[in-house]
C-alpha cells in the first residue's frame, strides 16, 4: 500500500472511532500510532517520539498562550465586566426596536475582546442579557438565538485560542492572524445586529423596546467599560503596536505569550479590585481553566502523533499534487473544504477539526493559485476556517453554544432556540461568501500594519 492509501484508511478508521464515542484525542493518537506501524512496519519511531513528545509539546513557549488566555477569560468572567458591557450597550441601543438583542451582540463583541473562548462568552453574557431580554418581552427564539450567535464573537474577535493553534499548525505569525481576524470579527458583530434589525421587522412581536436613556447616563455607563478597553488595549496594543518609530518594522512591546500573561494578571487584578474575584472565585477560575487546558492539550498531543504519521507518509503533499493535477478550480476546492467544515462542525468541536484538517487542507490550499502570496493565503484561509468551524457552535444538532444558552432558560424548548439562531447562521454564511470573494477585507489591516 502507498502512504496515501494507508493515511486514508487511518483517517477513516479514526473518524469511525470518534463517532462511537472514543475520546477524540485518543482516536487521533491511536490512528497515528497504528498508521505509522502499518506504514513503516515498526513501532520504534513513534515510541521514541513519545519519550519527549509530551513534555516538549506542553512546554512550548508559543502554546503556553493557551492556558494564560483561558485564565484571563475566567478572571474576566468573574470580574463583572460583562454586566458593565451589557449595561452600556443597552443604554445606547435599547430604545431601538430589538435594541436589547443588539446590545447583547455588542456586549458579546466587547467581552470577546478580553476572552478567547466562545463558550465562556456565551455563558457570561447569557447570564446578564437573557433575564433582561425576557423581562422586556423579547421572544424566546430571538433572545436565546442572538446570545448563542453572539457567543461565537468570543473566538472571532482576538484574542482567540483557536488562532493560536492555527498559527502553530500553519507556522504563521500569531500577531498577524489576530490582526487579520479583527475586521471580520467586527463585521460579524455588525452582521448580527443587522440580522436582529431585520428579524424584528419580519416578526414585530418578537421584541419590545426599552425607554430611551438620556445621553448623560449613556456616557456615564459607557465610561464603566474602561477595564475592557484598557485590558484589550494593553494586550493587543502590546503585542501588535509599534512602540519605537525610530526603528524600522513593528517594535512590539512584548511577545504574544507575554501579552497573554499581562492580560491574565490585569484581568485578575481588576477582578480583585472590584471584589468579584475572591479566593473562592480564584479557585473556581483556576479549575475551569485547568480542565479546559487539559482537554485542549490532550487533543493537541493526539494530533501531534497523528500529524507526525501524516508527515511521514507524505500523504498531504501527494493529495495536493493529485488535486493540482486534476486541474480543479481553486475556488471550487476551497468551497468544498468550507462545506466540509460546515458539515463536520455540526458534530465535532472546532478545535479538534482544526487540528485534524489543517495539516491536510493547508498543503492543498498552498499549491492552488488564489492570486496571493503564500503568507496572505495562509492568513486568509485561517480566518475563513475559523469562521466556518465556529458556525458549528450554533448549528443543530450539536451546537455547544445553543446548549449552554438553552440550559440557562430551562422553560424554553430547544426547538425555539434552533429557530431563533437560524437567521444568524445565514448571516454567518453570507459573511463567509463576502470574505471569500474579497480577501482584501481580511488582509487589509495586516497590510496596513506590517
Amino acid at each position, binding site marked *: 500500500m502507498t502512504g496515501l492509501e494507508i493515511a486514508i484508511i487511518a483517517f477513516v478508521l479514526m473518524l469511525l472511532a470518534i463517532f462511537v464515542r*472514543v475520546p477524540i484525542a485518543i482516536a487521533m493518537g491511536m490512528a497515528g500510532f497504528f498508521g505509522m506501524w502499518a506504514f513503516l512496519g515498526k513501532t520504534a519511531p513513534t515510541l521514541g517520539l*513519545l519519550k519527549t513528545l509530551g513534555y516538549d509539546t506542553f512546554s512550548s*513557549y508559543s502554546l503556553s498562550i493557551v492556558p494564560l488566555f483561558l485564565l484571563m477569560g475566567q478572571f474576566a468572567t468573574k470580574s463583572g465586566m460583562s454586566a458593565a458591557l451589557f449595561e452600556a450597550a443597552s443604554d445606547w441601543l435599547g430604545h431601538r426596536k430589538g435594541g436589547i438583542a443588539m446590545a447583547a451582540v455588542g456586549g458579546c463583541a466587547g467581552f470577546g475582546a478580553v476572552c478567547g473562548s466562545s463558550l465562556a462568552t456565551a455563558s457570561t453574557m447569557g447570564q446578564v442579557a437573557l433575564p433582561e431580554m425576557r423581562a422586556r418581552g423579547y421572544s424566546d427564539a430571538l433572545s436565546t438565538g442572538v446570545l448563542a450567535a453572539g457567543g461565537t464573537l468570543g473566538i472571532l474577535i482576538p484574542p482567540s485560542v483557536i488562532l493560536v493553534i492555527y498559527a502553530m499548525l500553519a507556522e504563521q505569525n500569531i500577531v498577524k492572524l489576530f490582526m487579520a481576524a479583527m475586521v471580520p470579527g467586527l463585521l460579524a458583530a455588525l452582521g448580527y445586529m443587522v440580522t436582529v434589525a431585520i428579524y424584528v421587522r419580519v416578526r414585530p412581536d418578537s421584541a419590545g423596546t426599552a425607554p430611551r436613556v438620556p445621553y448623560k447616563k449613556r456616557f456615564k455607563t459607557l465610561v464603566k467599560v474602561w477595564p475592557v478597553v484598557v485590558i484589550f488595549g494593553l494586550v493587543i496594543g502590546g503585542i501588535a503596536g509599534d512602540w519605537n518609530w525610530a526603528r524600522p518594522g513593528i517594535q512590539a512591546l512584548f511577545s504574544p505569550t507575554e501579552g497573554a500573561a499581562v492580560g491574565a494578571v490585569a484581568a485578575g487584578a481588576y477582578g480583585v479590585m472590584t471584589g468579584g474575584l475572591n479566593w473562592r472565585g480564584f479557585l473556581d477560575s483556576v479549575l475551569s481553566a485547568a480542565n479546559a487546558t487539559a*482537554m485542549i492539550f490532550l487533543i493537541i498531543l493526539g494530533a501531534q502523533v497523528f500529524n507526525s504519521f501524516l508527515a511521514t507518509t507524505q500523504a498531504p503533499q501527494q493529495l495536493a499534487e493529485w488535486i493540482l493535477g486534476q486541474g480543479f478550480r481553486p475556488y471550487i476546492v476551497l468551497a468544498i473544504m468550507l462545506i466540509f467544515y460546515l458539515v463536520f462542525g455540526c458534530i465535532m468541536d472546532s478545535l479538534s477539526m482544526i487540528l485534524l484538517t489543517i495539516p491536510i487542507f493547508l498543503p492543498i490550499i498552498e499549491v492552488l493559485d488564489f492570486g496571493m502570496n503564500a503568507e496572505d493565503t495562509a492568513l486568509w484561509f485561517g480566518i475563513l476556517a475559523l469562521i466556518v468551524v465556529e458556525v458549528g457552535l450554533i448549528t443543530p444538532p450539536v451546537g455547544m453554544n445553543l446548549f449552554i444558552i438553552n440550559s440557562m432558560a430551562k422553560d424554553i424548548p430547544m426547538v425555539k432556540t434552533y429557530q431563533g439562531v437560524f437567521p444568524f447562521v445565514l448571516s454567518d454564511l453570507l459573511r463567509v461568501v463576502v470574505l471569500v470573494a474579497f480577501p482584501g477585507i481580511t488582509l487589509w489591516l495586516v497590510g496596513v500594519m506590517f
Partner: protein
Amino acid sequence: MVLAKSAELRVGRVLEKITRALAFCGGFILAVIALVTVASIIGRFFLFAGLGPIKGDYEIVEMGSAIAIFAFMPFAQFKRAHVVVDIFTMRLPQRVQIFLGFVGDSLIALASGVIVWRFWLGLAEKIPYGSDALRSALSMGYKPFFAETTYELSVPIWIPYSFAFVGAVLLFITSLYTVWRSLNWTLEGREYQP
C-alpha cells in the same frame, strides 16, 4: 452486581481530593508564570532606571507550563472532561452508551500507560545519577555523560521533567480508577456525573 462499589466510591473521593489539589498546584504555577512574565516586562521597561528583565523568563514559562499542564490532566480525566462525539450513539440503548464510555476510559488508561512508560524512559535518559545496577533494574538506560540543562538558567532538565512526571503518573492512576468506575456504571446500568 458491581465490583466493590463502596470501595470504588471511597477511592473516588480520595482521588478527587488528590487530583483537585494537583490541579490547584498547576493553577498556582500558571499564576506564578504570569506574574513572573509581567515582572520581567516591567523590569525590561525600566531598563534605564537600573532594573532589568528577569533572567531566563522564557525558560520559567516553558518549564512552568509543562508542569502545570501535566498537573491539570488527572483532574480533567476524573471529571471526564475530554471531548467525545456522542451524537451518533445517543439513540443506542442506555447500557450500550455507558459501555462505550467504559471503552473510552479504558483507551485513555491504555494511552496514559504508554505515555507514562515512554515518559519514564525519556526522563531516565536525562537523570545523571544511579549505579549501573540500579539503572538497569529500573530500565533507565545508559547514564548520560552530563546532565542536560536549560540554556540560560542552567537548570538540569530532569528536574522539571520529574515534576511533570508526577502529573503523568497520577493521570495513569486516575484513568485506571475511571475504568473501574465506568465498569461499575456499566454493570449498574446507570451513569453518574463525576
